[in-house]
């Protein structure tokens, strides 16, 4: 047990080192692909906090991702850079407020009803942006210039530079991981896990379960907002699709694929999902079938879930246990 934990820790460090060194070797195409994956990893980790750790299955996480992305788009002046120092905290605060308001309502329900109402709120937001002129309707809005980190003349990180942007996203993904890890080990996080396992007991021990769930919901929404903000930066474009329920579904599938309730599972899931998607859509490999990558993707996910019910990270843990046994024996 201890040894497999140690192995996993080393694998995480190794993965982080590889990602840190990647820009020295990789092409722009892969740099951008990895940037996109790391943004999705932040998104998937945010969902893991409520689905994997607190036991609340949400189908509306795209609401917070998309909302923060729209906040950046709406705050960006045409043809000039917005300041990241203003727009990022602003977008996150607005997203936190939104998830607080929605959380206060949806957390009164449980189980299948919770899934339905989280979905309903995300759809409301989708139609708000789709059917009104608020954010350019169904066409969306362009962000012509990426936000800037400049403080006066001092501009250490230039987000228009692919490598700089890559490192910013990398640092934020690492930060989100370490933040969530600390939160989960804290007294607050321990209560969340206990709520997932045994909510009745947690309540009879004197905890106000609702408040704990709300805390987790808002933190998760805010982190999803961070991912949405970064995604809007990367693509320079927002449209209502990023609020839609199938975006929430994709991130949930990443979590299933990687394994819930372990954080690094969310990261593995984001990498696996997008890399496999890229693979299946390679015409050189799959010919005409490449255009129907969703089909191959579906088969892949079904296979993983059948063979590894606890996701791909289960594979890593089994390897860890095997290695530990060999070392002991």
């Amino acid at each position: 047990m201890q040894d497999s934990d140690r192995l996993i820790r080393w694998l995480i460090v190794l993965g982080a080192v590889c990602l840190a060194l990647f820009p020295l070797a990789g092409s722009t195409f892969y740099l951008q692909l990895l940037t996109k994956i790391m943004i999705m990893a932040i998104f998937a980790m945010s969902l893991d906090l409520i689905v994997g750790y607190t036991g609340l299955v949400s189908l509306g996480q795209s609401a917070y991702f998309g909302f923060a992305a729209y906040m950046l788009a709406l705050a960006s002046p045409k043809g000039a850079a917005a300041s990241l120092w203003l727009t990022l905290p602003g977008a996150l605060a607005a997203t936190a407020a939104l998830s607080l308001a929605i959380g206060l309502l949806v957390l009164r329900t449980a189980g299948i009803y919770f899934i339905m109402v989280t979905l309903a709120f995300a759809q409301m937001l989708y139609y708000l942006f789709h059917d009104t002129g608020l954010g350019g309707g169904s066409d969306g809005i362009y962000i012509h210039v990426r936000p800037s980190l400049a403080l006066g003349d001092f501009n250490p990180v230039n987000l228009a530079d692919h490598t700089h942007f890559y490192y910013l996203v990398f640092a934020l993904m690492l930060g989100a991981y370490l933040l969530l890890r600390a939160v989960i080990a804290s007294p607050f996080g321990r209560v969340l896990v206990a709520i997932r396992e045994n909510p009745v007991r947690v309540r009879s021990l004197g905890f106000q379960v609702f408040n704990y769930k709300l805390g987790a919901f808002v933190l998760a929404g805010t982190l999803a907002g961070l991912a949405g903000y970064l995604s809007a930066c990367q693509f320079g474009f927002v449209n209502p699709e990023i609020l839609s329920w199938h975006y929430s579904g994709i991130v949930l599938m990443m979590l299933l694929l990687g394994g819930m309730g372990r954080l690094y599972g969310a990261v593995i899931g984001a990498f696996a999902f997008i890399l496999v998607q890229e693979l299946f859509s390679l015409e050189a490999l799959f010919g005409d079938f490449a255009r129907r990558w969703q089909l191959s993707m579906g088969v892949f996910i079904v296979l993983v879930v059948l063979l590894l019910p606890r996701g791909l990270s289960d594979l890593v843990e089994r390897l860890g246990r095997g290695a530990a046994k060999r070392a002991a024996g």
Partner: protein
Amino acid sequence: MTEPVLVATGLTRQFGGLTAVAGVSLELAHGVVHAVIGPNGAGKSTLANMLAGELRPSAGSIRYAGREISQLSADRRSRMGIGRSYQTTNVVRDFSALENCRLAAQSREPHAFNWLRSARSYRGIVEAAERSLEAVGLAQRAAVPAGHLSHGEQRQLEIAMCLATRPRVLLLDEPLAGMGAEESVSMIELLRAIAAEHAVLLIEHDMDAVFALAGVLTVMASGAVLDSGEPARVRANPAVQEAYLGEYDA
């Protein structure tokens, strides 16, 4: 007798057409074990659930610490000092024994916790958790996941979790259920020690435990109180003998 800590009057609970508890009144006093016995389905657990706040009474009142609490939530009552254990073991199975108690002890801290500081690093809480494990004799098993403990040990853990919340009142729903003879003896000793410092409601089918511990005995049948008072007297009541104790040869 000392001033009662908790007074329930006319507690009633209906489930649809069924009256599970019908006008039950009882008092719990510091240092006294108030045992409640009765055949299966008599309404004992429903009574405990109403006192703990997990079920709202259809009628009746519960006074505790000078106020009416029958409409307060379960978590509120727990924070006011009413602790409980469950008829079927109810622990966090993935957590170690120590972590279960740490969770319980943590619930008593009035301040908010630092979200970035490890739960293990709060010395006071860890020590309180260790003391409660010590008290029930589980100190050696602190690191074992609760789900891997034996049935008897899980019952002890539940008591330890209650103690870690520093309650004034303990509502124990069949703490000896499913325990072996030897385990029962040590559990009775444990409950005796606990009773000196708490007001205890003890629901139990084990008559040895009941007569060893009870200062007051209430017998329930079909939701109502058949008799209540000094154990030796209640035991001799022919109605009680007929309804329940007939099965028990002392």
